[in-house]
């Protein structure tokens, strides 16, 4: 078996974000998604939205990013640290199309995210002179960033600043102005603690704040200063410093902010420290005797404005604090802190100079806020270091500072970048029945109160503005401007089978009759002709309306009718029923003049098309005609060869419609738009070919099945760039996104026809007809492959289960370290009873924005929810008991319930992970009523451990409880245990049932193949296992003998059982043979073979085997914790395998990774890649320079177009 891995939706989780002027013009934000994908976002000032400018897959784990600028330059370079063991410097190049260019890759260590290989930490000198790479332990390397004689960036060889037995917590560059660059690190030395058996040394080990100085003159690094600081320090923040060359003023006091639990300390070499407390929320649920944990700062950003500066620090609750430092020269007078606002907990914060804050939240959607004020003079309480003895720099903690969180006051939310991460479980099914020919993805996303249940449909989202009825069923609609210079359209023209209706667009839309249009017959085309003319093509002739009182008419020769027409502002072509073409061009006086002779065709023309007028030209050179004898002709319109046939293509079916349009696609032509010919066939297939701009020949034909209806095709415009729309049972849009041509369906009702509408109320709209209704809509966001609809959830979703007979999902949700509503009520009433004052205002704030009050480990809030995925509604929720959390769920069919589906939920009470323990486990049984919409609690059964996996099995329930697999039967008051097998090494994590076979996934030891035998006694027998240890997260059956599984390290692999073993086991009715077989390698008697192996790069959370494309074969769809959706597609033919592996090998050898990670090593991170081709890498063929493309294609004995076509076919044939 050979598989192709393709990404359907790239990762959206943000692991890092930095702001800089990467293009050299204005500010951009560089975001690292899911640790592997780089994206540049730029704020669009007119819409206030973040637009994606360019993205690139790194094919390696990006661990840290930084921006730096060499002295005298205007643009920032990107510095990356990754698992490649290299220093990588990347530049964003804007022209011709935005892309990343790798400037420098310098090997300094082994690959992989290792303990002593630098790359975990990255600090840059603010003046861009040097950079320090730090490892978690021991190693630090300093590079000096220079320019060589040609002005190119040239890093020096590295200088070492290693120290053994030292663990680094954080690293930052110190702002020293133009003095020698310095770096500050938080370090802890474990040498003592490792040698002291009494444990005393471990208790007294101190954390050091160490300053390293790079002496630029001597070219070496010295450990300049090291002093113990708070043991719980976790983060360092750079403080502006250095002298301004012009004014001799100090920009700031320099040094660093040391963020520790509950405190922020300003520190600098040989200066007195200042310390302030981190203000905290008053926890209304704090109980007596409960020790409260310190609050840490998770993200920080420094902002400088006009010589002043301030910091925004974010705590783990999401509260932002504004910290200011009052200084005189290099001396700090006071440090102040106050509460600013509350936003979601971020991985990184970025402030844009234009007054925006980008919050790259750690889970879920990213947000953009606009500053309304800087809270300089509000009434929020401020804490100053001068309020405390010795500026707060004393032994022991400072008294707590409290504040009350409140809704946003200083910022305004302006944009929201939708993000799926983390996807914790997903199901791929088609719940829409006949309304959809492809399945949808239903995913449980997010964490905590910001969790959502999302349904994802392939296609572009449509925003409907108007839907109004019409007197009949029109067959076409157009919009018209009255004048070339008009900004907006004035008329809407509707063609009915027996007439034409003209509507004018004004304050309202109303019918007009004095337009000069012929209303008694249908219309074939309308066009605004140069300056102020209007053209109507009807079956019997042309009407050129030049002014209100002047109409030029051209009548079709007697006995003929016009069957099809195509127009642009200067050219008109009509096809007559006598298989003739007539060509008109606008002459100097502005009237249409007919070309001398007609062109006769070999068959009746069914459709004709010319492209839009190229900018600054008099005519478009080509005409395309589709004939009913299954051919397409390209005909010249140039003056010296007018109406000569240039090329011809035979089709497999008669064409239904045809369209010529010039669209930009960098994979075909990097410099100008390509002329595409799109042909719709009667059998529902869309052909897309490229027209050669010189000789009109056709090449590079791509096929795609659109739907059951013969497509109609229209040239249009979306978001200001040319596009093509094809109307079949779904509406498809061909458009350019990030310089590549995309073909995507719209998620909307079936449309007959549509065209652009530009009106004051919607400048970039579309107007379409569907049946007898007129629709006005817009396409809000291009480039999004999946449309999302979401339902908010209360807690982190753990699993979703579908009801088999109706579109209903059950989710189980659980949050650790959280009190449920029952617990909150109990604690509040207990506190009130004890006479304590309880301030419940915090409990009344919306949890989605402010989070829930934190509880200790072992406290859980959890519920079971019934969701209607079609309406995105919650139908029912059932809260579990206090500290009881749901971990597993399954729909079972018990005999006692008459074979009706029953929901079973496995829960644990007071579960903790370190150490792994729980007070007790329960299996709860819910009867399903009301076509799945209502759950009714029946009973619960105690277990000794948490049931982490449940599955239905032949009228019984299989439960994985700790290390045992148990079989339960439904009883009256509880479940009845029938038999068990306790032979699983670590714990049962997954159970899959296929026929009589049970596949059990262990937490650490991969899969076990089991059978159930009821004779002579009930037994669950293991007959085969895997020889390798695997920390499983998800398992799916591929066929009876084959499983596909994913582990915690991002590997997906396929294991297969030998057919001989499989048959032998099935032929053994008592299981005696299995029971007495001799074990092999300390496990079961038989082992599965590894068939395929691949590293995805992120933890896979769900696997589904399903057919995704209409008529496509089954593929394995996976989702990851970083929010990515991908698919593994089996190859059909060996030729494809050979082709793709060779292509992959060639692209691999070009080493295109921005971080310099060896691709084979990355995909074979933990075990070598086996039988899987990385389709994402192969698709990057698109982006290679043409000579490289040609060289690779030549090696494959094909041309570039054929390679691209093959790549597209492999994708669209199975997925999207």
């Amino acid at each position, binding site marked *: 078996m050979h598989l192709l891995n393709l990404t359907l939706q790239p990762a959206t989780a943000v692991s890092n974000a930095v702001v800089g002027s990467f293009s050299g013009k204005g500010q951009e934000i560089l975001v690292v998604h899911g640790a592997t994908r780089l994206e540049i976002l730029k704020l669009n000032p007119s819409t206030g939205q973040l637009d994606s400018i360019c993205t690139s897959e790194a094919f390696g784990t990006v661990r840290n990013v930084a921006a730096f600028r060499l002295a005298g330059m205007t643009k920032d370079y990107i510095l990356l640290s990754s698992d490649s063991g290299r220093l990588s410097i990347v530049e964003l190049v804007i022209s011709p199309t935005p892309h990343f260019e790798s400037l420098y890759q310098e090997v300094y260590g082994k690959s992989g995210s290792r303990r002593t290989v630098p790359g975990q930490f990255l600090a840059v000198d603010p003046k861009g002179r040097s950079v320090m790479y730090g490892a978690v*332990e021991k190693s630090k390397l300093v590079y000096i960033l220079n320019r060589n004689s040609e002005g190119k960036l040239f890093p020096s060889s590295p200088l070492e600043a290693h120290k053994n037995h030292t663990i680094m917590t954080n690293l930052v560059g110190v702002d020293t102005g133009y003095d020698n660059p310095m770096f500050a690190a938080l370090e802890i030395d474990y040498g003592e603690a490792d040698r002291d058996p009494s*444990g005393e040394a471990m208790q007294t080990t101190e954390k050091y704040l160490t300053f390293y100085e790079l002496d630029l003159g001597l070219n070496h690094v010295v450990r300049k200063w090291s002093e113990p600081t708070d043991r719980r320090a976790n983060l360092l923040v750079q403080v502006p410093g250095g002298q301004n060359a012009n004014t001799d003023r100090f920009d700031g006091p320099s040094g660093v902010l040391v963020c520790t639990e509950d405190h922020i300390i300003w520190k600098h070499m040989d200066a007195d420290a200042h310390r302030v407390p981190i203000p905290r929320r008053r926890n209304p649920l704090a109980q007596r005797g409960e020790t409260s944990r310190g609050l*840490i700062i998770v993200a920080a950003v420094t902002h400088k404005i006009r010589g002043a500066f301030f910091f925004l620090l974010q705590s783990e609750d999401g509260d932002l604090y504004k910290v200011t430092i009052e200084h005189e020269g290099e001396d700090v007078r006071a440090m102040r802190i106050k509460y600013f606002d509350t936003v979601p907990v971020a991985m990184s914060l970025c402030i844009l100079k234009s007054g925006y804050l980008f919050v790259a939240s750690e889970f879920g959607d990213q947000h953009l806020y606009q500053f309304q004020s800087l809270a300089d003079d509000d009434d929020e309480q401020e804490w100053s270091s001068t309020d405390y003895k010795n500026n707060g720099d004393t032994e022991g903690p400072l008294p707590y500072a409290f504040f009350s969180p409140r809704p946003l006051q200083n910022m305004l939310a302006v944009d929201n970048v939708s993000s799926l991460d983390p996807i914790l479980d997903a199901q791929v099914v088609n719940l829409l029945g006949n309304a959809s020919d492809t399945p949808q993805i239903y995913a449980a996303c997010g964490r905590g109160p910001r969790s959502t249940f999302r349904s994802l449909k392939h296609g572009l989202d449509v925003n409907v503005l108007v839907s109004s009825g019409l007197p009949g069923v029109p067959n076409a609609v157009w919009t018209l401007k009255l004048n070339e210079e008009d900004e907006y359209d004035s008329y809407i023209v509707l063609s009915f089978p027996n007439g034409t209706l003209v509507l004018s667009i004004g304050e309202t839309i109303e019918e007009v009759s004095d337009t000069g249009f012929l209303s008694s017959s249908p219309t074939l085309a309308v066009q605004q002709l140069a300056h102020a003319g209007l053209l109507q093509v009807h079956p019997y002739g042309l009407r050129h309306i030049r002014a209100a009182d002047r109409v030029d008419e051209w009548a079709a020769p007697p006995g003929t009718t016009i069957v099809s027409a195509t127009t642009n502002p200067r050219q008109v072509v009509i096809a007559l029923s006598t298989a003739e073409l007539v060509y008109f061009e606008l002459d100097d006086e502005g009237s249409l003049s007919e070309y001398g002779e007609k062109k006769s065709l070999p068959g009746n023309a069914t459709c004709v098309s010319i492209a839009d007028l190229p900018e600054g030209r008099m005519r478009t050179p080509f005409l395309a005609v589709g004939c009913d004898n299954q051919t397409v002709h390209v005909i010249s319109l140039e003056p010296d060869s007018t109406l000569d046939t240039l090329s011809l293509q035979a089709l497999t079916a008669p064409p239904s419609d045809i369209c010529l349009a010039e669209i930009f696609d960098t994979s075909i032509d990097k410099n100008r738009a390509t002329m595409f010919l799109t042909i719709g066939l009667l059998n529902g297939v869309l052909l897309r070919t490229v027209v050669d701009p010189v000789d009109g020949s056709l090449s590079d034909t791509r096929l795609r099945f659109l739907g059951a209806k013969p497509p109609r095709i229209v040239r249009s415009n979306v978001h200001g760039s040319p596009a093509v729309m094809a109307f079949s049972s779904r509406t498809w849009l061909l458009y350019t996104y990030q310089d590549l041509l995309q073909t995507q369906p719209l998620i909307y009702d079936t449309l007959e026809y549509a065209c652009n509408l530009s009106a004051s109320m919607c400048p970039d709209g579309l107007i379409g007809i569907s049946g007898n209704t007129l629709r006005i809509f817009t396409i809000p966001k291009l480039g999004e492959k999946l449309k999302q609809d979401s339902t908010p959830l209360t807690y982190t979703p753990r699993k979703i289960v579908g009801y088999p007979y109706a579109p209903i999902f059950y989710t189980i949700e659980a949050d650790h370290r959280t009190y449920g509503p029952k617990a909150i009520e109990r604690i509040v009433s207990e506190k009130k009873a004890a006479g304590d004052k309880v301030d419940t205002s915090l409990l009344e704030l919306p949890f989605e924005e402010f989070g829930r009050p934190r509880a200790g480990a072992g406290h859980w809030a959890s519920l079971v929810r019934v969701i209607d995925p079609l309406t995105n509604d919650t139908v029912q929720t059932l809260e579990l008991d206090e500290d009881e959390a749901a971990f597993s769920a399954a729909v079972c069919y018990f005999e006692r319930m008459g074979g009706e589906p029953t929901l079973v939920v496995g829960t644990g009470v007071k579960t903790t992970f370190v150490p792994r323990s729980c007070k007790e486990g329960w299996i709860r049984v819910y009867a399903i009523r009301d076509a799945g919409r209502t759950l009714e609690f029946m009973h619960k059964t105690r277990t000794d451990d948490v049931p982490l996996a449940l599955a239905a099995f032949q009228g019984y329930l299989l439960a994985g409880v700790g290390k045992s697999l148990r079989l339960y039967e439904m009883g009256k008051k509880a479940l009845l245990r029938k038999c068990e097998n306790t032979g699983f090494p670590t714990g049962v994590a997954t159970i899959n049932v296929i026929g009589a076979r049970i596949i059990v996934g262990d937490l650490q030891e991969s899969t076990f193949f089991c059978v159930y035998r009821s004779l002579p006694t009930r037994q669950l027998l293991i007959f085969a296992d895997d020889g390798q240890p695997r920390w499983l997260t998800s398992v799916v059956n591929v066929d009876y003998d084959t499983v596909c599984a994913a582990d915690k390290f991002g590997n997906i692999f396929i294991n297969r059982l030998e057919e001989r073993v499989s048959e032998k086991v099935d032929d053994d009715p008592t299981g005696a043979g299995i029971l007495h077989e001799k074990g092999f390698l300390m496990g079961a008697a038989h082992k599965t073979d590894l068939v395929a192996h691949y590293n995805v790069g992120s933890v896979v959370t769900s696997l589904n085997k399903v057919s995704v494309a209409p008529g496509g074969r089954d593929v394995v769809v996976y989702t990851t914790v970083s929010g990515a959706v991908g698919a593994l597609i089996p190859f059909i033919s060996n030729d494809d395998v050979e082709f793709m592996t060779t292509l992959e090998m060639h692209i691999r050898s070009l080493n295109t990774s921005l971080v310099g990670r060896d691709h084979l090593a990355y995909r074979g991170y933990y075990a070598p890649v086996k039988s899987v081709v990385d389709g994402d890498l192969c698709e990057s063929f698109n982006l290679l320079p043409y000579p490289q493309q040609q060289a690779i294609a030549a090696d494959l004995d094909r041309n570039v177009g054929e390679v691209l076509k093959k790549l597209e076919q492999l994708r669209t044939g199975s997925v999207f």
Partner: protein
Amino acid sequence: MSELRYTANTSLEQLHARYTGTGHADTTKYELLTNQHRDTLSSIVGHPPLLAYLSIADGECQARERFEVLERMLQPCGVPPAKTDE
């Protein structure tokens, strides 16, 4: 004991100082485990998706999880055993 052990030792010590976590003939179980845990913990921190996965399970934010994991590297396997005279 072969002669080799004494002659090779000088360069071995250097190598051990250079490559933290390398074992030798006299590595104790405690040292081995401590090294293994430190490797694992730094690998968790070095793979952002894995860190995210853990932080979801634990109900903590990623920065807190990273911090606690790094702190655990100080002594991941408890107090070292007392030396016994052989």
